[in-house]
């Protein structure tokens, strides 16, 4: 359960982590500046379990993986949007963040309290009392997510195959 942080269309990776901070030595240092052009306090006030909600084309722009990594550092586990840009979508999966594509993103407002049941694929909005079902990611991508990301999946597979 967590608060929704609502953003609009085309939130690009320059919004998620502006380019001038990419040279900072650690992801933790960068994460303080996450979403800065949109929401100057985001990096300081985001609480683990809160949920980012975007609309069209979330994560477009540069391929910088620092974008999902700063969000993960802040405790983002799930992002809901109408749709995601391709590279960002892959980067999320590869780092164990679940990107949920769902039209309900339009109906969620900033600061709504959301409950997400990953097991059953259900989003519940406490403020509007609306319940939404989403298709769980399956197959190869689910195996990557379950392992916690692509690197962990590769290591696990290697160990399994001896």
């Amino acid at each position, binding site marked *: 359960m967590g608060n929704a942080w609502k953003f609009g269309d085309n939130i690009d990776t320059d919004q998620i982590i502006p380019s001038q901070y990419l040279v900072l030595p650690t992801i933790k240092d960068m994460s303080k500046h996450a979403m800065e*052009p949109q929401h100057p306090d985001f990096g300081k006030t985001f609480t683990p379990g809160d949920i980012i909600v975007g609309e069209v084309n979330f994560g477009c722009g540069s*391929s*910088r993986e620092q974008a999902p990594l700063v969000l993960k550092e802040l405790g983002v586990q799930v992002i809901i949007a109408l749709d995601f840009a391709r*590279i960002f979508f*892959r*980067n999320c999966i*590869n*780092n164990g963040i679940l990107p949920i594509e769902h039209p309900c993103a339009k109906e969620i407002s900033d600061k709504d309290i959301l409950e997400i049941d990953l097991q059953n694929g259900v989003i519940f909005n406490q403020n509007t009392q609306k319940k939404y079902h989403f298709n769980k990611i399956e197959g190869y991508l689910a195996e990557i997510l379950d392992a916690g990301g692509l*690197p962990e999946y590769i290591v696990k597979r290697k160990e399994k195959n001896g």
Partner: protein
Amino acid sequence: MSIKNSRMTATELIIARHANRDRVTPGEIVNVSVDLCMSNDATTLLTEKIMKERMKTNMVWDPSRVVIIVDHQVPADSIDTSIVQQGMGRFVDEQGIEKYHTSDGVCHQVMLEKYVTPGSLIMGADSHTCSYGSIGAVSSGVGSTDLAAIWASGETWLKVPETVRFILDGHLKPFVSAKDIALHLISLVRANGLTYKTMELSGPGLTPLTVPERFTICNMAVEAGAKSTMIIPDNAVIEFFKQLGRPFDNQALMAELKETENAPCSAEINVDLGALEPLIACPHYVDNVRPLSEIEGLKIDQAFLGSCTNGRIEDLREGAQLLKGKTVAPHMRFLVTPASVNVYKQALEENLISIFMDAGAVVNHPGCSTCWGAHQGILAPGQRMVTSGNRNFKGRAGSPESEIYLASPSVVVASAIKGALTHPKEVI
């Protein structure tokens, strides 16, 4: 074989070859071998960390297939940046990577000049990697984890993209350029219209376009979300490589790719190039495209001519031709950054650089420069820039309170002269 091939698009054919399969179909996930992979100073060290710490792999699979290019902040502008570049030097030495460029230009221009070939499959940790479809390669941008997996294994998984075919017809009017085609296509499909798809360009209107012009269009396809691009290589491509001194003459591959030109695709969109006029992408979205005529006269503070989109010799020639004998507007900061050292040297030889400098421009060493927004020509709150680059996101070139307008090289230069968004015909 040829009957089978004729049912696949060029992109599907190239992916099938790299997946060791007879055929692939859009939507399926396949494992492919990668011919070349590339990363730059924004992405290399993160990729190294992921490969070593999280994938428990110490060495890249084949150093001869790994390209590393320093281009985003050249020369280093801070201690942090310098530490990053120092780390890249250590990494390439340790791995025995020879395709390493510390100051030769923007990665995509360097890749075009030195490495990419038709029919190859290339992945890069930079979103504009999709540019190489302009010469008939399948290429796509990835994040650092995907690149780390490629470094470790030489392979990656791909969802075979649907092909959207844009059939170009007609001829561009004077002062309308490849950049305007790119902006027009993006405005047609919007910023997410090609997500997970490949953009194939064809038709009679394509034939007269040069490889650099095609590169400009393919480069910007990612601004519509495209995974990759494809132009079936023709004589213009052979001629381009000949002039580059890196001849390509694989007639068998050319013929095979040509056979795919009518293969079924998911959508066809007809575009009349003759109907286009100079366009501008307005803040803060690349698909917020308007005709220049609607916003002519808007005051600007900075103009930038450069980038992997529009920093080639043809773009500098176009700008210099308009600028010759004139000066930029008072208080205008006009920045020119050739896309590569080769472009820079050619521009020096043709006396273009002196035209820019005499007009009051600052000429920078080749690199991403102002286009990526963390290096040269940072904007103050309230300032406006017109740029030949590829992104106008909020805060992309400095203050979130600044504004970026994307346009063709000739509109950039005309606007630098007048100090306001200007049609090039006004400065002739």
